[in-house]
């Protein structure tokens, strides 16, 4: 009896669970729980569920790491805005400038930029904004230069800013005067 008790005590401390559930009640003093087999099945099911949950969580974590790495890479692009605070500041400035109508005013006023391809080919030219809402361009071309090319280039550049040719005057000696006005 003493030997059996000692064996039971040792079993309680050391016996692996599977062996414990397989043990017969004759080996132990305390009766083996009747629900042990049911608990073991529940344990296996819980283990499988835990394993699946861990696999799922690891997959989501891996995907998140990839997404974060890709986003961080995009953030490293050369751009003055790197933080949320910088973005908010830039957005506030942009909104204030738009409220003052700066973009709209500039869109229709960059004549030298718009006429660059044409004016850079001319050795002598004049640009006059006004009177009223007109822009006058007077330029001289070299004899070998094709006037229509220059005119097309000017029309295209100024048209992108919302201006259209109003009048054209040929002064002779390869000199021309063109007046542009805002497109209605």
């Amino acid at each position: 009896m003493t030997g059996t008790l000692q064996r039971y005590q040792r079993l309680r401390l050391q016996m692996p669970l599977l062996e414990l559930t397989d043990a017969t009640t004759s080996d132990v003093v305390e009766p083996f729980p009747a629900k042990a087999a049911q608990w073991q099945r529940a344990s296996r099911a819980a283990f499988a569920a835990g394993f699946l949950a861990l696999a799922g969580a690891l997959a989501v974590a891996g995907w998140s790491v990839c997404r974060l790495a890709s986003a961080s890479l995009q953030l490293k692009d050369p751009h003055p805005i790197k933080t949320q605070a910088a973005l908010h500041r830039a957005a506030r400035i942009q909104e204030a400038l738009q409220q003052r109508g700066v973009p709209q005013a500039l869109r229709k006023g960059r004549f030298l930029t718009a006429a660059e391809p044409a004016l850079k080919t001319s050795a002598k030219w004049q640009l006059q904004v006004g009177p009223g809402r007109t822009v006058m361009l007077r330029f001289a071309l070299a004899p070998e230069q094709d006037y229509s090319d220059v005119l097309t280039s000017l029309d295209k550049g100024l048209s992108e800013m919302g201006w259209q040719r109003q009048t054209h005057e040929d002064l002779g000696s390869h000199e021309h005067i063109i007046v542009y006005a805002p497109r209605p």
Partner: protein
Amino acid sequence: MSKLEQFILFHLFKAPALLLAVAVAVGLAAGALLHEARRIESLVRSRAKVDMELVQYNSHFLSTNSSVESVLSGFQIPCRILTNHPVQLELDYEAAEQLEKVGLLVGAAEFQNGRLTVTLKDYPTAK
């Protein structure tokens, strides 16, 4: 519940419980990473919508004490000031384009003998 039952239950469910705890921790970490990734993606998307040229070159219009001279000096536009009222400058074509980029609009310009002079429009005042 007897001590034996507690013993059996503890050893039966310790591994699944541990697995579930680790899964929950990994899930929470993944959630935090995803949140950060979404925040950065949103920042990248939003900054694409900001007109940086407008912000960088034209924000001097919001300053109350800005002037043509301060803009020319601030953007280091290479030019020679001929008169102050109206402001007339001598410069090259690239510098003239830079003037327009920073919002200084040209009222008149003349190019002759390789020399470009421009007369600026008045510096706009705040509305």
